[in-house]
């Protein structure tokens, strides 16, 4: 923090703005851009530009609104409710609320962390992300307009985010916004705040907890259901904020007993435990919670916040597993034992007097959890990895089924439990039940409706036990940010298109297909030398799926941010580093200033950086805000079919020529362009469709001829492979013959001539007439007038 010295000269005050009660340092690290600490309307113009092209699309789940007491209102066929809101705006409001929830989750997580860490390490703990990261906090720099140097500085970014989240949430109160475009602009705004919240949280934990700092070759950690040694007490941590469970490792290390225990996690706390100490292991995502609990694996379970089941007390107590809830986000009706002595807490939990406790003191959790785990383990040693005590009990359970199908019509995937049960009843063959495991989310909804009270989840898991147990592999520990040196190397090939794209596989497990589908999709791109980045649940699923040689993608492809490599950045909050990498390309490669310069940076990314987000199984609100935040930054996102249920998408209409234009800074002209990318948020149904969409959405107006040729080659090859033919729209992306895939050039020229009426000079094999625009090596696109004016000068 800057301090006023005695006798300071006016001259020295040049870079300091003084507010009453506060002295704020504003070091001239970069020229300030137009929108530091933006309010709701400061980037509205940018959003309107995006939404003019990428028109919001709404798919209501319900026809009515019941948010206020004038309702419920029937809004079907876009009718208005009592407050005047119509169905579209009501859905826009709902998505805005979802994004507010997502942004709040990450930002509150960041707040918990920063306050706690400042207490532990002080405000002045320096932000040092390692020698290869000099542009640290690119999101905060770009959005908030500050360059944080210490934990204390992160608080300033956090304060801005918190303020904006409250303001946007306010706008969702009855009777406010009526324009869908302005609602979407608010959803984008709060989602941009989400990215700031994520960046604050991850930087704070990296510097305070000593997580890996942009290291490509981090350790590989065991991942999957079958990872724990049943001869050791098992401590299971679940949630998204590692702050509460980290001291478990400290305590056991101090005691020299870390190797006597198994510490394994579910969801992002698992990632962050392994980032803290790679002796920790990863069970899996939220869909593994019931798998792990019902299999009796934990001797104690420590929960914190976010994507955790809301019935943990019930689920754990049925299995005799003591629960320690730690975050005030999920107190679970449990007694607050913060003031109790450790021995009393342990006694209450081990004796079963209390099913669980609320203990928000991390240091105490660190001691209590191992003591409880050890005692419970000693009490019941051979309960692990059993869904039924005996095969007879399994058989008895299956025999209860009457094939009423209530479960089928409640299951998110309409899994044919009835058929599996019927075959098992008739022949004893469990195979039809076993295949369900590969798709089952272990959500437990089927059990809620089964009139016979069958423990369907246990039946399914038991039926596929061998495969489930062996669905284990290795995850590369989350590395955090991307190095500046890596950006220097790949920035140009990405912007020019020689690296055909960056695929960022991010998010949850609500897959439409077997878990291995995520690996099949991503490997297609790794083989084609795209850069693949991942985080969160996707990153741990990848760590479970092995090839014939027993290797996961992490073992087959390096962890660098480079062509043909796969980078695990870490937990949900580490997603900020993916946005940060795109921003750093604009900054480090193209020298665009970041400070409070959001629209220019997003415009740069939209037109030049062929990065696409991919969430194969999105379900959380956080996924909504992460995706929407990427969208505002100019990064399209493809979601799996469950992503439809967010209700809103941003889909352009490539056949509307007038929608697709840019200003060319070089020529000073407004130029009609190819629709690249043509959607900002779109849901796909199958893995085949995911692959082709991802490839096509990597195309950018700024691609060089070489880059476009490479991108088109992949797009065309993948379309032929998965769709059986050339894409419908490939010709839209052709600016000159140099854009055409070399091996197909003649064939494609002929199609352009015959089917699209283009004029071809066959002697020179040149296109004479036809493309939307010609190729110009100096083409310099923008859709922002101010950027155009700035660089035309």
């Amino acid at each position: 923090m800057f301090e006023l010295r005695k006798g300071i000269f006016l001259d020295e005050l040049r870079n300091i703005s003084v507010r009453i009660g506060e002295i704020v340092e504003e070091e001239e690290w970069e020229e300030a851009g137009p929108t530091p600490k933006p309010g709701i309307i400061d980037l509205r113009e940018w959003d309107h530009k995006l939404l003019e092209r990428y028109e919001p699309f709404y798919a209501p789940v319900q026809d009515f609104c019941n948010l206020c007491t004038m309702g419920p209102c029937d809004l079907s066929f876009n009718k208005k409710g009592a407050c005047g809101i119509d169905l579209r705006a009501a859905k826009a409001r709902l998505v805005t609320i979802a994004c507010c929830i997502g942004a709040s989750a990450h930002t509150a997580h960041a707040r918990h962390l920063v306050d706690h860490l400042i207490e532990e390490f002080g405000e002045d703990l320096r932000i040092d992300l390692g020698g290869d990261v000099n542009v640290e906090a690119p999101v905060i720099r770009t959005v908030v307009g500050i360059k944080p140097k210490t934990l204390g500085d992160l608080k300033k970014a956090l304060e801005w985010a918190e303020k904006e989240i409250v303001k946007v949430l306010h706008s969702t109160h009855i009777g406010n916004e009526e324009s869908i475009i302005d609602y979407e602009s608010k959803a984008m705004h709060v989602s941009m705040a989400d990215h700031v919240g994520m960046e604050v949280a991850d930087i704070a934990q990296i510097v305070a907890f000593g997580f890996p700092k942009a290291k490509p070759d981090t350790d590989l950690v065991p991942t999957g259901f079958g990872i724990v040694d049943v001869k050791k007490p098992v401590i299971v941590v679940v949630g998204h904020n590692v702050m509460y469970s980290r001291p478990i490792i400290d305590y056991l290390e101090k005691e020299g007993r870390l190797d006597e225990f198994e510490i394994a996690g579910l969801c992002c706390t698992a990632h962050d435990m392994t980032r803290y100490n790679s002796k920790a292991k990863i069970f899996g995502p939220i869909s593994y919670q019931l798998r792990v609990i019902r299999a009796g694996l934990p001797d104690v379970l420590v929960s914190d916040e976010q994507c955790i089941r809301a019935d943990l007390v019930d689920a754990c107590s049925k299995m005799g597993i003591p629960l320690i809830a730690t975050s005030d986000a999920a107190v679970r009706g449990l007694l607050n034992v913060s003031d109790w002595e450790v021995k009393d807490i342990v006694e209450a939990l081990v004796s079963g007097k209390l099913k669980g406790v609320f203990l928000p003191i991390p240091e105490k959790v660190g001691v209590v959890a191992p003591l409880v785990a050890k005692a419970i383990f000693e009490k019941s040693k051979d309960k692990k990895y059993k869904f039924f005590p005996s095969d007879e009990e399994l058989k008895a359970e299956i025999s209860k089924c009457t094939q009423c199908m209530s479960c089928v019509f409640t299951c998110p995937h309409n899994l044919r439990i009835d058929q599996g049960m019927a075959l098992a009843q008739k022949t004893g063959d469990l195979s039809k039940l076993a295949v369900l495991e590969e798709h089952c989310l272990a959500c437990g909804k089927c059990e809620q409706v089964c009139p016979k009270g069958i423990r369907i989840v246990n039946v399914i898991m038991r039926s596929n036990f061998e495969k489930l147990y062996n669905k284990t592999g290795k995850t590369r520990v989350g590395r955090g940010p991307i190095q500046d040196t890596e950006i220097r190397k790949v920035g140009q090939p990405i912007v020019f298109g020689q690296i055909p794209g960056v695929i960022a596989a991010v998010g949850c497990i609500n897959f439409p297909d077997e878990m291995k589908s995520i690996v099949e999709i991503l490997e297609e791109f790794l083989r084609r030398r795209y850069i693949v980045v991942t985080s969160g649940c996707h990153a741990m699923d990848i760590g479970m799926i092995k090839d014939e040689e027993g290797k996961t993608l992490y073992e087959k492809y390096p962890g660098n941010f480079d062509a043909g490599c796969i980078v695990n950045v870490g937990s949900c909050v580490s997603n900020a580093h993916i946005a940060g990498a795109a921003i750093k390309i604009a900054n480090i490669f193209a020298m665009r200033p970041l400070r409070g310069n959001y629209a220019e940076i997003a415009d740069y990314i939209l037109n030049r950086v062929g990065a696409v987000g991919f969430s194969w199984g999105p379900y959380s609100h956080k996924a909504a805000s992460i995706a929407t935040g990427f969208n505002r930054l100019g990064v399209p996102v493809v979601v799996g079919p469950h992503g439809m249920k967010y209700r809103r998408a941003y889909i352009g209409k490539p056949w509307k020529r007038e929608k697709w234009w840019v200003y060319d800074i070089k020529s000073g002209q407004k130029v009609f362009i190819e629709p690249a990318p043509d959607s900002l948020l779109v849901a796909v149904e199958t893995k085949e469709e995911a692959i082709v969409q991802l490839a096509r959405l990597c195309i950018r107006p700024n691609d060089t001829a070489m880059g476009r040729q490479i991108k088109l080659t992949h797009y065309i090859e993948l379309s032929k492979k998965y769709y059986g033919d050339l894409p419908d729209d490939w010709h839209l992306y052709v600016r000159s013959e140099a854009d055409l895939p070399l091996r197909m050039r003649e064939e494609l020229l002929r199609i352009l001539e015959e089917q699209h009426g283009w004029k071809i000079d066959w002697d020179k094999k040149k296109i004479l007439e036809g493309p939307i625009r010609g190729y110009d090596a100096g083409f310099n696109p923008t859709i922002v007038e101010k950027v155009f004016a700035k660089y035309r000068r």
Partner: protein
Amino acid sequence: MISKEEKFPVAKRYNVADIQVSREATAVKPAVVANLIKKASNPVLITGGTLLKDPKLVEIAVKFYEKGIPVIATGGSSKPLIERGVKPLFKTFTLHQITQFLLDEDFKINGKKVDLAVFLGFLPYYLSRMLSALKHFSEIKTIAIDEFYHPHASFSFTNLTKDRELYYSMLEELITKL
């Protein structure tokens, strides 16, 4: 329309919680679907990813095409269809994108606005949302001929999940009556 006497399964929603208040799809028999298609001025068949798993659905879509109904293939369903000689109007766009296009007044197929869209071979929850969008924000009639009853469609087959043979026979009957 399906009368109780004919002993069709009840029109149970593909997901009991996919509820709505305003209008629930009319459960219809194949003959009604055939009539609706015949009466439409510009109908299309839109196919989805289930065709990659169920050859019977491919066969049905091919027959639609042979009866002169244009096909929009999504989700990769173009691959088996093209192999069987179908030339889909579109194959690159997702159902999500196609629905966005259909909602646009300016979107024409063969020079005309689509007035009837028939859906075959989709994940039910994915299709349901698109049917909802079309129901609320367009005049287009929608018919779901998947094995699931789709409440958001204008017309839907009833729930045939329990009886696959009945489902296939209904698809065949629809084709013969086209």
